[in-house]
């Protein structure tokens, strides 16, 4: 019997009080749903949803060599990120395998924040610390003292605006601002993992409950509800966003995952030699989007074939579901490069019966401007 206690966030009691169903999310006891997956998904698309993502890892990097250090540590060129702007990036092994995908926020000229996946916190910290050896930088793992809330949806910004004087309307997508929310210091990042507009609010643990409650109270008349990890997964799938552990791993290169655009081979970084070779050759398998008909979704790990009867697998689904917004099955999958062209017909084995899907471009869903 597993006696290891799961970790909880500062908002745990609120989720219990709201009758959430819980799941073990990488060692954390996280809310998978509060009411209904479909209702929570629809709220994020139509009004707003509030997520507790406090388990995520936050690292602060500062010091005179911050820019040079991050340029060396990550696949992108962090020194080119404008002040108060953000960029999606990857940290890879010397062999090119992905350690984590993450977002780099530039706070000041020589001050950065990295938000990484909870499950990769130790690995990312270790890699950053190792790579910092010859640089004059301070690296702080602030994960244990900070809570992170994400409010996402067309009404998200308006709801947050009720609790802060920060000039939210002036903040471009993928920027960050240091301000006060209900007189507490907070970082407000206009980023997210749902395909909708919204903010991620980084605040000290001791203020998380107050801000959570205030957001739900202010947002309730506007249709804001708390949303769990089940809806988070279908939302990010529709938005074509990869999940480490599903689409990304140490065994995937950025090029097979369709993330070549975040790699800047013209600068020196850990992994540049390996990735330069990868970039020069066609990957064996590529990550594609698939869409199907009917209501029967091909799910994670289901095998893919080139015909209704073939027994030779040409790929595997990484994430799949019946799209709540679109109403038909969608999936991300790794397929043989020869089968990765748009429009290619691919048959998914759905528990013994073959379902026809087509290769389509990502994302499946894009919000109205």
């Amino acid at each position, binding site marked *: 019997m597993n006696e290891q206690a799961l970790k909880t966030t500062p908002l745990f009691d609120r989720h219990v009080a709201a009758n959430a169903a819980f799941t073990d999310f990488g060692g954390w006891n996280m809310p998978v749903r509060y009411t*209904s997956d479909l209702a929570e998904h629809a709220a994020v698309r139509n009004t707003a949803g509030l997520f507790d993502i406090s388990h995520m890892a936050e690292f602060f990097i500062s010091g005179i060599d911050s820019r040079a250090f991050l340029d060396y540590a990550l696949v992108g060129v962090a020194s080119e990120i404008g002040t108060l702007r953000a960029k999606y990036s990857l940290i890879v092994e010397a062999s090119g395998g992905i350690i984590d995908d993450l977002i780099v926020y530039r706070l000041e000229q020589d001050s950065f924040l990295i938000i990484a996946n909870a499950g990769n916190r130790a690995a990312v910290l270790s890699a950053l610390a190792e790579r910092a050896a010859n640089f004059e930088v301070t690296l702080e793992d602030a994960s244990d003292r900070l809570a992170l809330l994400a409010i996402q949806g067309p009404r998200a910004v308006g709801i947050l605006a009720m609790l802060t004087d920060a000039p939210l309307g002036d903040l471009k997508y993928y920027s960050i601002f240091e301000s006060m929310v209900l007189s507490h210091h907070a970082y407000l990042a206009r980023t997210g993992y749902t395909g909708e507009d919204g903010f991620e609010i980084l605040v000290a643990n001791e203020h998380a409950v107050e801000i959570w409650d205030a957001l739900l109270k202010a947002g309730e008349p506007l249709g804001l509800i708390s949303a769990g990890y089940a809806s988070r997964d279908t939302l990010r799938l529709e938005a074509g966003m990869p999940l480490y552990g599903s689409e990304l791993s140490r065994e995937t290169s950025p090029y097979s995952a369709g993330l070549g655009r975040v790699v800047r081979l013209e600068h020196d970084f850990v992994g540049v030699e390996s990735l330069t070779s990868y970039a020069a050759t066609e990957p064996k398998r590529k990550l594609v989007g698939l869409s199907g008909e009917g*209501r029967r979704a091909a799910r994670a790990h289901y095998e893919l074939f080139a015909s209704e009867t073939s027994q030779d697998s040409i790929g595997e689904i990484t994430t799949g579901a019946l799209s709540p917004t679109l109403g038909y099955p969608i999936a991300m999958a790794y397929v043989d490069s020869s089968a990765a062209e748009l429009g290619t017909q691919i048959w998914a084995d759905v*528990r013994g019966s073959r379902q026809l899907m087509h290769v389509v471009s990502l994302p499946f869903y894009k919000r109205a401007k």
Partner: protein
Amino acid sequence: MTSREELLYTREHEWLAIEGDVATVGITSYAAEKLGDVVFVDLPKVGTTTTYMKICGEIESTKSVGELYAPVDGEVVATNDAVVGKPELINQDAFGAGWLLKIRFTQLPELLSQEQYAKLTDEG
């Protein structure tokens, strides 16, 4: 009309309403809640022979797929078209509008009373 107390249950969280030699079958609200939002229901065709505790269909939710076990040996005499078109009926009204199929049975196996089923779900 069979009342909730007169329903019989299986360990697989199905309910049966017996009228003569026909059993109306559905899944319980306990099962529906565990499944989450039901998005697809696969039922056997009318005329299919069912075998006790053999899988005869599927109930798929956003997050998982639940197997439908035949609670009796018999023949499917009716299926609920409404629930096929609107799977959420199972979440909304598992014991009523969310019924799944009717089976003409040859004999009844051992089934749980409401009290026994309640004990099962309390332990669950």
